[in-house]
C-alpha cells in the first residue's frame, strides 16, 4: 500500500507567505505564494490551502514546519506543527538539492538578506544584513515608488539598460532622493533601475565572502533574474538558482516536516 502522507513547509515572510507540499519521497507535489498581509495565521492557512489540489486533502498532511518572520504566529489547529528558523530551513534545502557541494546561499528577501555557509554537509556560519534595508527587496520597492513604476517592470527595465547609474547612498530613503536627482539630470529610468540592482548586489557582497558554490534564493531573485547576471559579473563566476527560488526556504521546512524534525 502506498504512503499518501504529505508534509508541508510554510515560510511566512514579511511580504509573502510561501507553502510547499512534499510527499513521503520528498517530491514536491504542491506550491503556493500568497501575500502575508497583517494576519499571518490567515496567510499561512491560505498558502497551505492553495498548495493543496483537489485530489490532495488536508487530512493527508501529517506534519507542518513553519519558518520565516512569522513562524511563531501560525497556530494552525488540527495539524502537527513546529517551527524552525528560515536560516536552518534554507541550509536544509541546500543540503537536499546540492548534497555533494560546499555551498554559500544568498537569500534576498523583502526585509533581510542572509548569507549562509555549508561546509562538509554542515551549516558553518550565517550572517544577516545589519539593521538597514539596503540590499533587500524593500530597496526595490522604494525605487519603484519613487519612479512610479510597477515592481513587475523592474526586471525588464534592468535588462534594457546599457549604462547603469551608480547609486552611492547606502540608505534606502536617501537613495530615493539620489535617484530623483539623477533623473532630473537626464538619466534614463532603465539605467537607474539597473543601477539599483548593482547597489543591492554590492551591499550583499559586503556581508560575507562568497566562496564555493553560490546559490541565489529568495523573492527578489525569483522576480528579478537580471540580478543573477550581475552577481555572475561581479563575482566572476557562475552561480546557481534553484527551480523555485522564492520557495526555497519553504522547501527546507517541508523536508524538516518530512523527517519529523522537532525542537
Amino acid at each position: 500500500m502506498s504512503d499518501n502522507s504529505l508534509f508541508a513547509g510554510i515560510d511566512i515572510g514579511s511580504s509573502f507567505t510561501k507553502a510547499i507540499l512534499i510527499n513521503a519521497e520528498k517530491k514536491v507535489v504542491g506550491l503556493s505564494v500568497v501575500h502575508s498581509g497583517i494576519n499571518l495565521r490567515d496567510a499561512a492557512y491560505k498558502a497551505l490551502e492553495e498548495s493543496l489540489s483537489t485530489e490532495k486533502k488536508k487530512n493527508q498532511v501529517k506534519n507542518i514546519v513553519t519558518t520565516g518572520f512569522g513562524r511563531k504566529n501560525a497556530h494552525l489547529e488540527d495539524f502537527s506543527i513546529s517551527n524552525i528558523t528560515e536560516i536552518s530551513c534554507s541550509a536544509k534545502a541546500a543540503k537536499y538539492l546540492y548534497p555533494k557541494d560546499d555551498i554559500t546561499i544568498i537569500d534576498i528577501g523583502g526585509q533581510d538578506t542572509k548569507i549562509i555557509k555549508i561546509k562538509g554537509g554542515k551549516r558553518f556560519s550565517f550572517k544577516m544584513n545589519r539593521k538597514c534595508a539596503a540590499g533587500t527587496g524593500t530597496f526595490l520597492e522604494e525605487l519603484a515608488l519613487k519612479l512610479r513604476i510597477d515592481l513587475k517592470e523592474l526586471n525588464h527595465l534592468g535588462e534594457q539598460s546599457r549604462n547603469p547609474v551608480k547609486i552611492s547612498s547606502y540608505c534606502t530613503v536617501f537613495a530615493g532622493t539620489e535617484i530623483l536627482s539623477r533623473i532630473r539630470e537626464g538619466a534614463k529610468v532603465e539605467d537607474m533601475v539597473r543601477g539599483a540592482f548593482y547597489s543591492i548586489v554590492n551591499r550583499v557582497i559586503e556581508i560575507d565572502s562568497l566562496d564555493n558554490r553560490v546559490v541565489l534564493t529568495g523573492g527578489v531573485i525569483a522576480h528579478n533574474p537580471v540580478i543573477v547576471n550581475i552577481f555572475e559579473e561581479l563575482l566572476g563566476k557562475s552561480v546557481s538558482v534553484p527551480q523555485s527560488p522564492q520557495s526555497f526556504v519553504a522547501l527546507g521546512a517541508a523536508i524538516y516536516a518530512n523527517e519529523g524534525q522537532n525542537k
Partner: protein
Amino acid sequence: MTPENEIKSAHELRKIATEYYQNLDKASKDPRKNIAWCSSVGPAELLLAFDYNVYYPENHTAILGASRSANKYIPVAVAQGYSPEICSYLTSDIGAYIKKETGLKRAYGIEKVPKPDILIYNTNQCRDVQDWFKYYAKEFQVPILGINSPTFIDELSNTHVKTVEEQIKKISETLEKITDQSFERKKLELRLQLSLECSNKWNSVLETASSIPSPLTFFDGCIHMLPAVVLRGTEIAVEYYDKLEQELKLRIENGIAAVVEESFRCFWEGMPIWGKLRALSNQFSELKTCIVASTYCNSWIFSDFNPQEPFRSMAKAYTELFINRSESSKEKYLKKMMDKFSVDGMIYHNARTCPNNSNTNYGMPKRLQNQTGIPSLQIDADLNDLNVYSEEQTKTNIEAFIEQLAGI
C-alpha cells in the same frame, strides 16, 4: 531563571545597593562629607583613602539603560551637540541631568544624583569618559583630574606601568592640596587590600560558571557585579561575594543549574544590552543555553593589586584591562576563556556607540572561529540606545545560532 533556581543572594544585593545610594544621598547633604565621581575603572581606592564617598556615573547610566528610559534622555544630549554615535552611557546620563531627572528615583527613591566635589577619570576604557566628566566639571564648577592611559597594549611593559603610576602619584599630591589632608599610605594599603579581596572573591564567583551545568549566567553576573564596581575597597563587597560564592558552590553540589537542562554554553563578548537583559536571559533559557562567561563581568577583576606596592600595583591592574589591549592579546585571552568555560559558541555584541568595547570591527570573530572551530554570532545592538536594536532580527539570529549548535 525560575523561582526554584533563582539566586537567593539577590535580596541581599538589593539591600546593599539601596544602602550605598542612600549613604551617597546623605553625604551629599552633609557639608562635612565630600563626594568624588569616578569612572568605573578609575583609581577608586585612592579616593577612598582620602575619605571621599565615591559615586560612579556609569552605574547610574546603566540603571537608565536597564530601566529602558535611556532613549528618553539620549535625544536631549544630542540636541546639545553630542552625536548619537558616541557613547550612549554619556548621552543618556547627560540627557537625564539636563532634564533634571535620575534613574535613582525609581530604583532607590532618591531625587537627584549626589553633587560632586571632584571628578576623576581614567581613559583606560575610552576617551568618552573624559568628555563626559568634563561636562560635569563645568556644570558643577569642581576640579577634574584624569589619568591618560596608554592604549592598545600588547605586552604590558615597565614603561606603560610607570607612566600611569606617575600620574596616580600626581593625583594623590593634588588631592592632598584639594582636601587639605595628608596622604596616608596605610589607608591606601587597606583599601587596596579590600579591593584585592573583593576582586579575588568576584573572580571565584565568576569561575563557578566553569561547572557543568553552570550555577549562574552572564545575565546574573551583570546584576551581581554591582559591589565589584561601586563598593570595591570596602568590606561590604568582600562579605557579599563571600556569601554569593558559598551559595553558588552549594548550587553546584546540589546540581542546581541557572539554565534548566543546560544544553549549550556560550560566551558573551562585549557590553550588555541593558534594556534587554531580561528578554535575552529568557530567550537563552528557553533555548537551554547558558551564557557562562563574558569579558564584561571579568573587567572588574584586578588580580595585580598589591598593598605593598600601592601606586605601582594600581597602575598595573588598571592598565592591563582587556578593553585596553591589542587584538592579539585579546584573542589569546578569549581562547583561554573558551577553553576554561567549555564554550560551544561565541556571541559578540557589536555595540553601535561603544566601538572601544566591541571586538567585531577588525575581523576577530572570523579569525577566532577559524583558529578554534568554535562558531560565533554577531549581535548588532547597543548598551543603552535601543533605537539601534532590531529585536526580531536578533531573536531569529540567536535561535538560528542555537539550531546550528544543535546540528539542526
